[in-house]
């Protein structure tokens, strides 16, 4: 007798580092075009919450994507930056997605979205103080213990600052990486949006940012308004192509950090698949130049 084995619904693979490849947000409307093109280089990122239903078409689509591509699981609603304890039910759902889909990258935000029982569906800002630092670190420790792997934490885009803040965002983020061992997701659009909104040079922020911990990069489009005093106010809208200034920062960062997985995010007014794919190809070209440059550097060092 040959013992029957129960096939797993999703093949479990070890999620190896995926290196300097460009990926895109996965949007269900692109699924037919993606499947038609077959397996290709690159990875897909999904918002974890969209796949927290019990079953149905979303999981079928994600299984189809995961069969041929590395996946990045991007949490949006964990409220890691909030003062109240993490929602354990939500954390358990997040953990089951990590276990089921074996993503190559797992990330969340330095922000909060739930207060008491209300969920605000936005990435809300927090003050940078010793008290909030301790709280954020406790939350990240808890997430990492539950998912059994390091989390990548994303820098926020912000429109206001807190009067009570006692440290810079970069000092705050560096302290988090030291205390929790988490990695970082550097969102270059957020960096540029925040720098513009608060009136400091993006390169100054970059000079203070712990680049060595960056394991993923996000690129996205933004919209523009003005504040009450007529200052430029950029909005992290994810509804258009990546801005030139953000591409330039990306080249600089790849030059300094070397190539890391890079995602083109597009969440609203979603274009046809070829448009998004072309943005990813542009990112890949910059990553490839970074690859050549770091290889040349390695040869010099040898």
């Amino acid at each position, binding site marked *: 007798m040959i013992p029957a084995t129960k096939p797993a619904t999703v093949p479990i693979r070890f999620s190896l580092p995926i290196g300097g490849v460009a990926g895109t947000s996965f949007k269900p409307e692109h699924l037919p075009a993606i499947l038609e093109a077959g397996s290709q280089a690159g990875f897909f990122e999904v918002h974890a*919450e*969209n796949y*927290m*239903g*019990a*079953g*149905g*078409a*979303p*999981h*079928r689509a994600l299984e189809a994507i995961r069969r041929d591509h590395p996946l990045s699981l991007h949490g*949006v*609603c964990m*409220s890691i930056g*909030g*003062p*109240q304890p993490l*929602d354990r039910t*939500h954390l358990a759902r997040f953990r089951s997605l990590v276990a089921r889909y074996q993503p190559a990258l797992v990330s969340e935000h330095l922000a*909060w*979205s*739930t*207060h*008491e*029982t*209300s*969920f*605000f*569906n*936005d990435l*809300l*800002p*927090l*003050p940078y*103080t*010793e*008290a*909030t630092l*301790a*709280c954020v670190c406790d939350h990240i420790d808890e997430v990492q213990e539950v998912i059994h792997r390091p989390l990548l934490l994303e820098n926020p885009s912000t*429109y*206001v*600052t*807190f*009067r*009570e803040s006692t440290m810079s965002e970069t000092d705050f983020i560096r302290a988090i990486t030291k205390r929790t061992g988490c990695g970082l997701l550097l969102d270059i659009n957020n960096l540029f949006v925040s720098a513009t*909104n*608060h*009136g400091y040079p993006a390169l100054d922020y970059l000079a203070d940012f712990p680049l060595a911990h960056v394991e993923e990069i996000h690129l996205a489009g933004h919209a523009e*308004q*003005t*504040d*009450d*005093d007529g*200052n430029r*106010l950029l*909005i992290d809208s994810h509804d258009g192509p990546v801005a030139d200034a953000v591409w330039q920062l990306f080249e600089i960062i790849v030059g300094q950090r070397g190539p890391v997985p890079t995602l083109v995010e597009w969440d609203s007014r979603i274009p046809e698949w070829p448009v998004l794919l072309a943005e990813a190809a542009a990112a890949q070209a910059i990553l490839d130049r970074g690859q050549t440059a770091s290889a040349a550097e390695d040869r010099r060092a040898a």
Partner: protein
Amino acid sequence: MRPEADLGFAALFAPSLLDPARDAPSTVAGRNGAPAGRRYDVYRNNVTVSLIEALVAIYPAVQRITGTDFFRAMARFHVRNTPPSSPLLFDYGRDFPEFVANYAHAQNIPWLADVARIERAWLDAYHAADEVPLAPVRLSAIATERLGDLVFAPHPAARIVRSQYAAVTIFAAHRDSAPVARIDASTPEDALITRPEFDVVVRHLPPGGAVFAASLMSGQPLGAAAAAALEASAEFDIATNIAGLIEAGAFTSIALGDAG
């Protein structure tokens, strides 16, 4: 020790998000300590608009019936009064049909809340757990004299929505952008929502069918469910109804109840 008093920032930041009458919190600032003003409004706008969009995504037929401006105004009231309590937006809007039923400006569209109930059930079916529906052949294995004791396990996606209006026809006519023919709204229609595999299907139940299906789905044996359905409608036909429910994928399994 963590100084808990220093963690009050969210309690001060949150209340103005959904209340346009409240000022931006004084704990936050723009450049050089200027009041946050329009900068805080970006968060208010993100929160309100994204939650309205969540309701648009759940209730597209309701929006098509009312028109976009009417829907967004109605949704804005609901979002401000009843923000989500879960980070899963596909779970949001459970109180919206009831809100629509009581919304003063929608009283001339009395079937609107029932269309909303069908759309909410549609989304629940869409995300429900995957289960293989009961195969019709299973029923033929049961001895005729035991049929009355048969108990059916409901499929996780199966839902029933009852309406005094032609809610199923109105729902179906407004879920996409095709032209809408004239509908007699006054004919009562009951909906059966199922998802045998991955596609959600909304069917119009025959007379007595909703009472029958609801009784079976709540665990009543077949005999009792049929009696209740006949009481509700003299036109009720058990053979058509049971075949229809099984074909629609309303159940996952059958068992003989204790009464036998």
